[in-house]
């Protein structure tokens, strides 16, 4: 079931931060991993990832470095700055709290 675009859009930043907290990645790799882990449930336009990455970079949360990938092609890798790591932790925590709150409401039996 494809998700609502706005819902996906609002979580892209969180997903990017969470994945980059695991290791350095380039843009296409991020998309690949998200698709693998969600089984392609996020049917997003791939081009929209880059403005998100650049915005985070502009905020000083990410650093970039061009490196040759496994195929030898030059790729721009992203990694979290210390500030980004802190921000990512906060965002993940915020999401968990939010999801639990939403879940708590959804799990309650219907009134009346």
């Amino acid at each position, binding site marked *: 079931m494809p998700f609502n675009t706005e819902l996906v859009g609002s979580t892209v930043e969180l997903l990017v931060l969470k994945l980059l907290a695991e290791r350095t990645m380039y843009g296409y790799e991020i998309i690949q991993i998200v698709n693998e882990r969600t089984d392609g449930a996020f049917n997003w336009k791939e*081009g929209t990832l880059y403005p998100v990455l650049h915005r985070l970079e502009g905020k000083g949360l990410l650093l970039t470095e061009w490196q040759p990938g496994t195929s030898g092609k030059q790729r721009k890798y992203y990694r979290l700055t210390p500030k980004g790591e802190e921000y990512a932790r906060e965002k993940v925590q915020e999401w968990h709290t939010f999801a639990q709150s939403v879940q708590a409401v959804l799990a309650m039996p219907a009134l009346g």
Partner: protein
Amino acid sequence: MPDSAFDQLAEDAAAGLKGDQELFLDVKQELCAHLEDKADALRAQGHSEEESDDLARKAFGSPLAVAAELVAANAGRMNRRALARLAFLVVVMPLAVVLALYVGYQRFVGLSCTLSVIGGNVGDYSIKQLPALPGATHIDNAYESKASLVQQLAGSSKNAANLYHFWENHRHDPDAKMYYAYYAIFVPKEFVQNIRGETMPIDPQYVAAMRKGEQVEPQNALYNILLAEYYLQNGINIRSDLPMGHYGPPTDEILDRRAFTLGMTELRKALAKPYLHTYRARILQMKLNALPTPLFTEEYLGRIMLAVHEIYPEMVRYRNLAWQISACARVLRAEGCLAEAEAMMDTWQPYTTLLMSDASTNLYQSSVACSGGEVLSKEGAEVYDQLGITAKARKVRAINARLKNIDQQRRFSKSERMQQDDLFQKHGAYLAAINRARGVKNQVLEADLQPLRMHEHAMIDEMLVEGVVLLLILALLVVLLDGAIWFVLRWERGSRPLLLLSANELFRALLLGIALPVAVYWVYSRLPVIGGREYSWSGHWPRFAIEWLLLAIALLWLPSRSIRRYIDRRCAELGIMVPARKQVWWILLRTWAILLTAVVIGVLPALLVPESDAFIWTGGLLVIILLCVAFYAYSRTRHWPLLPRIAILVLAIGLGEVAAYSMYSHIINIICLLLASLLVVVSMYSYRRVTNCHARYHGTVALSLAPLFAFSALFLSLVVQPWFIANEVYWLRQDSAFLNHMSQSHQRPVGFSASEEQANAYYQGLLEKAMKEGR
């Protein structure tokens, strides 16, 4: 990097960033790489090439939507970068270049002064003539504030009246006798041209001044000594006055009998007094203490020269009197006054003892005592022989042999007791110079000026830093010229050089390319065996030249390499084609060859015309070449026809030639300017056929190297050089073998440093022993 199938899509998506070329190319490359990865993945899933490309495009989404989001995401960064670029181009870069050129000029002046000192041309050298570095004007200010005292104490016959007034104003001070003694040295007097046999009347004012000195300090033999020297200068021609091989009287002769008699009388009066005090070391200390603490080596050297100028001429006078004493004895013997001749010659020992009485004030004085004693005993033995007093002659000869031994030991031997070599090593050319400077004829030889060459260690370091700064400024001029060529030549063709150098990269290049080699050199130059400075510029300059050449190569090559590697890497990342390495080297070589040829043409007049100012030429030629290239490039971009372009160029060069000829008035200038014009034409032609790829690459390299060299020059001038100098001043302060007041240690009593005391005590002991044993 070849054009990708997704080039257009990526360019459309990144189109909003075109205002920042580097960012635009960076994002475009990133998006291209993404699309290619996606298409490759789709192909791996079995889609055809065309299908894969289409699906990749679809998955990417609308380029317009992505473009809008990218602009929004990068807006802040683009603004910051634009501002930084603007500030860099309009403020930082011009400021750095102007400041670097200014500092470079200052270093050039400093280097000229240091070279002048090494060359022995010390006549025009003074503390005041050296321009202060930026931020160091307090030296001049402090100097000015002390100017009155310095002027009152300044050693020049022109202001003897000032010295007298100074004494008058302080006549009740405990040190008043010192001030008068100092004045007495500079009382003006008429000199006699002995060689032409002309005599001058005795100057009554000079005599009166000395008589007054006797009243001020009756026990001091100084005034009688000065009078004796003056009278005898007027009274007799002495054969020793003439260097060997010159014309002149073969024997001594009386010029003015009255002056001759008066001179001998004054000498006897002097010898009856208990001591001879010149007070020069103390006066000099007062003068130097009146000056602010020296911060720069040039200033320190200026003070050393002040000291030498002050002390040496006076010391020469005492030695002259020694020559005159033996001449008097010879003249008397020739006239048949044998008893008087013997009595006159007998004064040699008391006179030497008198000189020794003040030898405890500085090494120069002890050196003069030894020298005077040696001169007198040598000539005394000859006179005694002529008088037939063989017993005395034998004794004096024995003393002379001992004094000669001391002299030999001071100058050449490696005394185990004093370990003189070690002393030289520790205290540098000061001591060596003092020891070498004595024992000469009564003319000032180059060796007598050796003290001016002391502390070559300091000068060599000074020259090193100044030379390196000049080198970097030259490199800056070269890359600016290079950058100007590429920047202007290709401006209209959309191949503007990129300013890619990040602050991190600049810092890294400064640290690894400039600071590290200088630090390595600094450590090397202080290693005692392989790098130690041995105080001998003339003997070691080839080695220093090789060391500096290697350092210069390292300083130019290392940072350039670092910057080039960075630019190569960025070009690869951004998909900018880098010219083949061979072509890059060829163009680099050509640029440097053109600039070096310009410099060679610039210094040609100096080689061919005596007293020409070649450095003005070099700078002028570089400016002419730069202007011509800029003009040529501008005219090309405006597509002017060839003929008017050449006509204007020829006119400009012709005007330059006329101006240069009217300034310097020598045919060589015309030849050099013609050569320069030819060089301009050749250089322009050589740049005609380069491609956009070359232009962008070389322009980027040149404009990235320019701030590096500018900041390097500033870093060396404003950080490294003061540090070097602070280090050298510290080092110089340890070296107080000659004049401990050079150390500016106000607490230390007037007298010696430990090493000077040791050296003085040793030589004075030898001297006294030699004199006693001979009795």
